[in-house]
């Protein structure tokens, strides 16, 4: 890239081939910016392995990654990730849908806001996982209970964000809707709801992170598959390599889920003027 005198970057004139573009310096910089931290981290891990020197309790990076690879290729890791993902996604979308409705009800009028708010602001402080014993009673150890738990985790974050979005709408939008003769319901669903999309997406993004945390514990307590089960079986059979592998997978799931959600917001949120964010 060349720089004009004003410091603004201008596009290079010649069109370079894809192969040439691959070795653009920026890629190198980006690659190094990931490789150096990764290398330092691995070194630290190896140092810790030798410092602790209890291979049974604290496996180093080589045995752990070896185990991770084996579990991925030959073992249950991918299946576990899939099982957890299904639970998260079903519960998350169901809970978000309910959360949007509850949030709409909270934001629709002051009275309904007070009525629903009393519950939402109370229930959101109960850690979802404490419902687990009750859920176990109601639904048993199967899928439904996990769906319920994940939905519960998602509802309140989404509801509160939706309510904020519904009430934070610029008054001009409401006035315009009324000028065009929209009824109260039309304004609620065709003006307020779309305008609160950015808030809804933000709430959903937080809810997704919480959902992952909840499902892990639910699977640790009562399940025969999933990432949480893998974690706890590693703990029970004193096999930290398996636990570490499951945690590595869990981190990937978290990163990928968050990234996918951010991309989805970027792609579909533009219509509702969602600001791009890279945090």
């Amino acid at each position: 890239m060349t720089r004009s005198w004003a410091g603004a970057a201008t596009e290079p004139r010649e069109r370079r081939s894809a192969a040439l573009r691959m070795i653009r310096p920026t890629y190198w910089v980006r690659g190094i910016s990931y490789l150096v931290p990764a290398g330092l981290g691995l070194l630290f891990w190896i140092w810790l392995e030798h410092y602790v020197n209890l291979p049974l309790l604290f496996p180093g990076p080589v045995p752990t990654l070896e185990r991770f690879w084996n579990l991925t290729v030959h073992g249950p890791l991918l299946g576990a990730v899939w099982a957890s993902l299904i639970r998260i996604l079903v519960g998350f979308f169901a809970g978000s849908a309910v959360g949007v409705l509850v949030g709409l009800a909270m934001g629709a009028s002051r009275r309904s806001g007070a009525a629903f708010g009393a519950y939402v602001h109370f229930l959101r402080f109960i850690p979802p996982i404490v419902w687990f014993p009750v859920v176990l009673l109601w639904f048993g150890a199967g899928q439904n209970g996990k769906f319920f738990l994940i939905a519960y985790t998602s509802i309140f974050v989404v509801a509160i964000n939706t309510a904020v979005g519904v009430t934070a709408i610029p008054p001009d939008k409401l006035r315009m809707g009324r000028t065009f003769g929209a009824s109260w319901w039309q304004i609620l669903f065709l003006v307020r709801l779309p305008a609160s999309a950015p808030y809804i997406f933000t709430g959903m993004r937080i809810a997704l992170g919480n959902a992952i945390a909840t499902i892990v514990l639910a699977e640790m307590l009562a399940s025969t598959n999933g990432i949480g089960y893998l974690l706890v079986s590693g703990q029970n059979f004193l096999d930290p390599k398996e636990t570490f592998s499951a945690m590595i997978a869990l981190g990937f799931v978290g990163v990928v889920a968050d990234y996918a959600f951010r991309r989805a917001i970027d792609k579909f949120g533009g219509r509702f003027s969602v600001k791009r964010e890279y945090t």
Partner: protein
Amino acid sequence: MTLGRRALDSSMAWAVLAVLVGIGAWQVLSTIVVQSFLFPSAWQTLDAFRAMWSSGELTHNLALTGYRVALGAAAGSATGVALGFLVGVNRYVRSIADPYVNYLRSIAAIAWVSPAVVWFGIGKMPIIFVAGYATLFVVLINTAAGVAHIPSDRIRMAKSFGASPLQAFRDVIFPSVVPFIMTGLRIAIGAAVMAGVAGEMVGSNSGIGYVLYQDGLFLRSANVFAGLIVLGVIGFCIDRCFVFLQRAMFRRYELAHD
């Protein structure tokens, strides 16, 4: 306007009404569901609460959980603030730490309870560890974001008035970041309580999480309901305290109202 109508107009009245209707529906529902262990009534829950309270079971285990969560949250947020400043001030540290922070914060804190139990044994240490882990990254990210959001003019001004780096940090950078740290702490405390209680279900043999899980297994659902409500009230109070603190610090640190 008559007194009755005025009362009907206030939000408080509607909230109270909603809660009363809710409790009524709860009572009715529990009489329809015959097995009380599936759905204890409001009265049974109240009784269970009284029994747990008078036997000291509730306060004892709540104190245990509170102690662990507080210890973990304190350690985690102290580390988070320190690391957050390091990451925020120095860009080399930031570029090294960035992938780790982003990756490690994606691992649910509760997952660490497994290795923590293997390392420290069943008891209070895994809970402290997990609660600390839950707070660490929230506080770290908020602190670093706070450092990044300091208007550069403020630092320049401090420098042109001849402040040493230490003075600039103590008198300009740190106070400017306090609002961000407070926001991080408010989120982190909730996360720590959740992780701590969840951790006690698998990695401990005492504490409110363990007790409620056991109660669930032995079909004492009224106890579980009582515990749920108590935890909700405590969480609500802690959050209110934070809001109060934030408001109190509003003037000094220019915290935004929310």
